[in-house]
Structures are given as C-alpha cells and as structure tokens.
C-alpha cells in the first residue's frame, strides 16, 4: 500500500465510523433518507463495479434485489435472518452467474434490453412458483428489525462494496476489465478471459443487489412481486451511477446524494406534479451534466490546476 492509499483507507474508515453514529443523532425522516442514500450507494456502486469498466448497462438490479427480498419473505419464519441475508446474496450471485454465462456475449443494447426483460422473467417465475408450488399466503416479513439496524447493515454493505471495489481496482481482474472496456479484441490478444472477468464482476454486483434486497425486506413488511421487482429501481440505480460517474469508485456516491436530495425536494414541494418534475429534472441532468458529477469535478480540478500554473 502506498502512503496515499493508507491515508484514503483511513479516511474512509473514519467516515464510516462517523456515519455509523448517525442513527444516534438523527431519526425518523432524515434516517430514512439516509437509509435510501445508503441503499442506492451500495446498489449503484456495485453496479458501477461491473458496468463502469465494461460499459454494459445492466437493468437487472431489480431482479436480484427482488429475489433477495423474496428469499427473506419465504424463509423468515424458519431460518435465522442472518443466514437469510447470506442466502439472498448467494441467490443473487447464482442468478447473476447463470444470466452472465448466457448473455455476457451480447453487446450493447441487446444486453440492456435483455436485463430489463430478465427482471420480468424472474418476477414471473417467482410468482408462478409462489402461486402453484409453495402456496404461501401473502408474504409477510414481520421482524423486530428497526430502521437503525437496516441502516447499519447497509453501511456494512457499503464498506464491503468499497473494500471489494478497491481490491478489484488494484488486482489483475480490475486491470483486465479496464482493458476489456477499451478494446475486447486487444483484451483477448493479451490473454484475458473477458467472459470470465465480466462474469466475476457481474456476480459480485448481483450478490450485492440480492443482499440489499434481503436487508430492505423487513422494512416493507409485506412483499408483493410488483413492488419487489419494480423496474423503476433498476433505472434509478443506473441513473444515479451515471450521474455521479462510473469511472471512479466514489463516483456513484456523488450521484446518489444530490439525486436523492433533489428527488426529495421535488416530492416534498410539488406532491401533485412529482413525476412531471422528476422527468424534467432528469432531462436537465442528462443534457447539462453529460459526463457525470465526477467528470465535472475532475474538469474543474484540471481547470483550476491550469489556471494556477498560468497565474
């Protein structure tokens, strides 16, 4: 580890420790806002781990997330919750692996649309199984888990996602993915197994999304397919990550925070025109901040650096 890396790791650890104290300071609405931010941070960051270097836009987040929530709903009365979290992660990872094996050779828009359809396919299969085989009556998740605990779980997941992300960036795998993102032909010609590399990252992001779904399930109390597998979630994750910037590990975070706050302000201020204004705000972001917040920040730094030199 270089000195700079040690410093950043220490800073991240301190930041996490401070955040972990948050539930003692704020409560209620602000806490639930924090839960939202933490959830989207984990989802968007793990999404970007895969999509940033490979440029594959995955809309399958909701599939893994919903699966995780369903694992909890199905097992909450018989299996300890902690085990369920693990199972949900595994379920997300396994489905991601299966899907990845089948689809990672698709490129561009085909992959996008396929993953969008995947969320629907998983949802259809899950409800059909529930309807015809398991026959459980409504999916209730009645636990003693409080919002505070959910926040801490998400924070731990965020720490894990950053740790894994950091390790991946430093590893051969991360380097391989950057090459793949640049030129798959070159990647193959320097000996990279691009399918396996992409698959590894896709599985990581699927595992995280599944676990997040399981963490959030107790918050919903009652799990419905249309809610657990909402395509809106997938889109929001993509948008937040792209808004922030996917080429830095911390990029999605700087997308999630302003986006969530903006969303909240619109929802709070204009309850009857929320959707219209969300759409317009979203369009403004796409048109005015095309390279994401990170891009803005970095070009600002570059600009500042240049003016210092010249000044």
């Amino acid at each position: 580890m270089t000195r700079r890396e040690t410093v950043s790791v220490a800073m991240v650890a301190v930041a996490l420790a401070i955040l972990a104290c948050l539930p003692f300071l704020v409560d209620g609405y602000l806490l639930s806002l924090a839960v939202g931010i933490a959830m989207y941070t984990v989802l968007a960051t793990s999404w970007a781990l895969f999509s940033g270097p490979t440029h594959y836009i995955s809309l399958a987040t909701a599939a893994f997330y919903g699966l995780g929530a369903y694992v909890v709903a199905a097992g909450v009365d018989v299996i300890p919750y902690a085990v369920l979290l693990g199972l949900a992660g595994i379920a997300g990872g396994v489905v991601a692996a299966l899907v990845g094996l089948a689809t990672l050779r698709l490129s561009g828009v085909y992959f996008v649309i396929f993953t969008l359809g995947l969320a629907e396919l998983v949802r259809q299969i899950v409800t059909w199984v529930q309807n015809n085989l398991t026959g459980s009556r409504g999916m209730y998740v009645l636990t003693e888990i409080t919002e505070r605990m959910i926040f801490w779980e998400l924070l731990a997941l965020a720490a894990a996602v950053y740790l894994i992300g950091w390790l991946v960036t430093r590893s051969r795998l991360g380097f391989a993915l950057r090459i793949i993102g640049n030129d798959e032909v070159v990647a193959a010609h320097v000996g990279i197994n691009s399918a396996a590399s992409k698959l590894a990252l896709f599985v990581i992001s699927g595992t995280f999304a599944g676990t997040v779904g399981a963490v959030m399930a107790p918050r919903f109390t009652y799990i419905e397919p249309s809610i657990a597998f909402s395509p809106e979630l997938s889109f929001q994750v993509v948008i937040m990550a792209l808004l922030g910037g996917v080429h830095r590990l911390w990029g999605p975070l700087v997308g999630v925070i302003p986006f969530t706050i903006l969303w909240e302000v619109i929802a709070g201020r204009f309850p009857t025109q929320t959707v219209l204004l969300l759409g317009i705000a979203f369009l403004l972001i796409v048109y005015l901040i095309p390279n994401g917040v990170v891009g803005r920040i970095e070009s600002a730094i570059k600009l500042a650096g240049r003016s210092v030199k010249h000044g």
Partner: protein
Amino acid sequence: MNRRTALKAVIAAVFAGSLASLAIGAAHAADPIRIGAVAPKTGPLAAGAAVTHWPNIQLWAHQVNEQGGLKMKDGTRRKVEIIEYDDRTNPGETIKAVQRLATQDKVDFILAPYGTGLNLAAAPIFAKYGYPQITSTSITDKTAELTKRYPSIFFTLGTTTALANSVAGILVKLHNEGKIGNKVAMVNVADAFGIELAESARPIFKDAGLEIVFDKSYPLGTQDLSPIVKGAKAANPDAFVAWSYPPDTFGLTAQAKIEGLDTKAFYTAVATAFPVYLAKFGKSVNGVLGAGGVNPDTPAMKAYYAAHKKVTGKDADYWASPVMYATLQVLGQAIEAVGTDRKAVTDYIKNATFKTVMGPWKFTNQSIHDFWTVGQWQNGTFYGVASTGLSGAKPVITKTGW
C-alpha cells in the same frame, strides 16, 4: 457570466435550496388541523387510488371546511389542511413520506396509505410515531397479529378468508336452491392479492362441497385473457370466480361476453364495484358478482353518493369508497371528541362507537368485523348481497346471459 459558470451557479443554487428546504420543512403549527396523505398518484396502483382514495379525501376535507371545520371540545372550530404526497406505488417512498410528514411537516394526523402492501409497509412507522392508521383499503388475514404488533392500526375492509368464505357461501346457497350446479372455474391474478385469495378459497370451496373444475393463474398485465376464458368455458362450469385486479377484471368480463361464458354466477374481484365497470359494460353487467358491495338505500349512503358526485365530479365506487370515507369520519369524530392528542384519539377510536356512512362502527381488537364481502350489480347499482353481520343485504340473483 459564461455558460459554464452560469450552469454551476444554477446547480449550486438548486442544491443549496434543496438543503434549506429540507431543513426548514414547514414548522408553523397554525390554526388548521394538519393532516398528511400518502398514496399513489402514479405507478401501478395509481388508477385505483384515483377512484377510491383521493376523491374521498377531497370530499371529506371540503365538507369539514365548508361547515367551518371540526367542532372541538372547547367549542372552537378548526379547519383541516391536507398535505399530499405521491408515493409512486413504491413502499420505500411511502415510508419516507410518512416519516417526512411525522418529523418534518409535523402534521397532526396521517391518513392511512392505499392498498394492502403499502399500508403494511408503513405500519411500523405509524406505530413508531404513535399516529393512528385507520386503513380502508387493506385486506389481510393477519389482522390479529398485526393489531397486536401495531397498537394504533385499524382494519375496516375485511379479511381474505371472509371474502372467500362469502363467495363460497353464495355459490353454495345458489346450488342448494337448485339454481346452479357445483362446478366452479376459478382463476386468479398472480400477484400477492390474487394468490392469497385463491389459496384461501381452495379449501373453503372444497369443504363447502363445490368442485373446482378449472384453477389457473395468469400474470399481472396479461394483454389477452381469451385463453383463460376459453379454458374456463371448456371446463363447463356452473360458476366463474376470478380473484382479479382492475385491468383484468375489465378484460375477463369483456372476454367472457365475447366467448359467451354464460355461467349463472359470475364473480370478478377488485374493480367490479367501480362505476367505470358499469359505464363500460352497461346493462349486461346485471347479475355480475364482485368484491365489496354497499347498501345504497340508506339515507346516509344516498347523501354520500350525491355529495361525492357533486364535490369531486366523479362517482364513488360501491365497495371501498364509502369505507374510506367512513374512516375519515371516524378520525374526524375522534378529533372532535378528544382533540388532537394522538394517543387520546387512538384510545378513543378503540373504544367509542362512530356514526358513519357505513352505519354505526365499533372497533373490536382494532378491527371492524362487520363488512360487506360480496356485491352484485342489480339494475345499475352494486348492492351488497353478502356480509359478515351487516343488515340490508339484497337477495342474490342468478345471472341470465350477457
């Protein structure tokens, strides 16, 4: 200012403004009683909420304020102010909005959200802040467990078992009277609601001596229901029961008409009681059974339907609409009796008897146990034909063709 700095300024202003508005909220507790409302205005449940949920809030607030407000114990009158949020049919948003209402807007009361899932998602938050949650659109069999867990939640619309029981009861009655055979074709939408009802219904139908000759589910959002209806028809049933959601309730009915699925008992669940159902199918709905029902002949109910039409410009439905309105009456009467102390209001609701459009309401174990379960279109009105202890049920008729 060049374009880039202008852009930066705009972004900075937006975020500064956002933070400021988050922090300030709206803290002034003025004269009116502030009441929060969270329900879908967009998303899959928005259309249902637009029929059953939002118009009643509008109607009730209008009526209360027209009278000068709620008459408080001390003789003053306080108007009501409604603060609305759209949860986009997303339970995460529902939770956040309820918390926002409780801790940022600091409203006096919060109306229960719309639908079973969203209500249950919000239940822990209502309980945490001690807001009474008088649900009007959630049906669950877990009432006992939920009311024990959440001391301020109230259920009014019924249970899935009761719904399934009543349908069985009606079919058995018609069968015993020799009007129909005992063969039932049952279909359900593969969503939580439909799955739960179908699950409840299977043993109940069986125990009641009904034979299920066709039993299939279909996915939410199926665009062509004709294979379902064809399949049901091929099984040659005496009765057709669909645990359906709004778009497919319309679709199944239309398809049954086309295919000539002419059972003497024809039941579709949610949205059969919607005025638009009658508007769409006209006279041919006569005899169609559906979830809910009302007794529209009471003076209170007549006044309610008239007022609903006058104030909102829309017709109320014949199931959850008046129930929703009744929950608002309960809240209003409780506030008038004990003021805006939420604990007192909750206790009052648990114990008092209320005069509502649905008749007198008295909660036991935080639930209303007398509710309409099955209604039937008879001459342009959706009458309650079965209930769990309410009076005024019309005798059920058999359906004669489309």
